[in-house]
């Protein structure tokens, strides 16, 4: 190590010291942009990010129709076995017997929000909602059926 190196190191050390302390000092002084949310108070105005994954939901349109064909791709994709699809056969307008979902069972308690089911779904029947207040007093309440009662598959979805 040469002498120049030595003093160069000292200079670099002091410089990085000053730079780092300047940054944190600025943060310390700049009070406005605190990132902390005072949550229960601001529940009304709370905005979550678009991509926040809260739970899996199955959207229905106004005529109580969903897009799920009961193909069980999501069930296969789920690493935790959080999704269970029970199917039934329904007769459609043409009189053909066709497979359709009976109940779309979703275990929120074992779900890790990995998003694999959403990716696997060929018909975009399920999506991630950004609802995060899942606290319940009974564990059974975390077992959810996603398809609404009497719902049907949307026409045109194969």
């Amino acid at each position: 190590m040469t002498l120049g190196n030595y003093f160069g190191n000292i200079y670099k050390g002091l410089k990085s010291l000053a730079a780092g302390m300047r940054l944190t000092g600025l943060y310390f002084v700049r009070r406005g942009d605190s990132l902390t949310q005072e949550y229960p108070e601001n529940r009304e105005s709370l905005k979550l990010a678009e991509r926040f994954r809260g739970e899996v939901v199955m959207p229905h349109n106004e005529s109580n129709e969903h897009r799920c064909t009961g193909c069980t791709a999501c069930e296969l994709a789920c690493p935790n076995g959080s999704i269970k699809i029970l199917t039934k056969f329904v007769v459609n307008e043409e009189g053909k017997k066709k497979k359709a979902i009976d109940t779309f069972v979703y275990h929120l308690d074992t779900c890790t929000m990995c998003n694999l089911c959403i990716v696997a779904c060929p018909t975009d029947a399920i999506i991630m909602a950004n609802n995060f207040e899942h606290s319940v007093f009974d564990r059974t309440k975390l077992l959810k059926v996603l398809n609404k009662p009497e719902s049907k598959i949307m026409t045109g979805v194969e």
Partner: protein
Amino acid sequence: MILSIYNFTSLTDKFHNFLLAHMSEGIVLATELIVTGLLVITFVAVLAMVLIYLERKVAAYMQLRLGPNRVGIYGTGQVVADVLKLVLKEGITPDGADKLMFNLAPYVVLSTCMMALAPIAFGNGLVLWDLNIGVLYITSITSLGVIGILIAGWSSNNKYSMLGAMRSGAQIVSYELSAGLCIISIVVLSGSMQISDIVNSQADGWWIFKGHIPVIIAFVIFIIAATAELNRAPFDLAEAESELTAGFHTEYSGMKFAMFFLAEYINMFVLCAMAATLFLGGWMPFHIGHWTSFNNVMDYIPSPLWFFGKTFFIIFIIMWFRWTFPRLRVDQLLDLEWKYLLPISMVNLLAIALMNILGWHF
């Protein structure tokens, strides 16, 4: 000297004379010891709570957070709650531990750092024991604290504890050198090791202003070395969570852990008070040379306010450090001490001695 308006000597003298009037000398001594002991314990407890609160707030603000803000006004009650939790928790002693030593260690650590408070002048005349080797005494007592840490590390019968204790011990012992050299440089300038002398020598300006660049270098080195001696980030290898869980106090819980925690903060206070005393004039108000009127105005601010103001400023700097820099590696730590701080502080000490001999300081 207008300084006398806030002189606490009269107060303590009054107390002493009052006691003397009623009891024999030995009892007076004992009483005074008990009173000061209680005062110190109270002070220490309050101080630690304040510092913990401060630390959390500073950390939060530097990380663009809010910090504790629920319990009490601005979260001040949070600390009390934490303390209560620690006090009420069960203290567990591991099976394979050396029980006596394991239980002894926190007391050693805590009592040493409380002993170090003795010669610190909190205000004009507000000092427990103004002995003639004040700074040397503090240095020696601080070095005692290592023993407690080593005892804790060994007696836990846990490899993480032991490694943490060894790292901590090595770190404290090595950084003590450069810290000691910086202390000596002020001793050289003020010509005394007595705290009151050192403070009085700054009546016409603090050393950091009077002593030009060498004293500023000494100050910076002292702050760095103090941070390292305190095992605080970025020098917290002794309790590096990712490597050693929590270092020497891994096995401690409840009140014993609280004592280590307390000791850590008191040590911080002691070292920062030292820095404030040595470089920023202790309780001495901000004076500029012979501007008498300005100095008089400054004297109206009570001396403990000055002292705590400076000390907390340095504590803030150390906290600022902590939340700015990542942890060093062991080799970087030792490089910093033995290759940089120690040689620089040695040369600096020479420079200061030269400066003192030639009378170059103000």
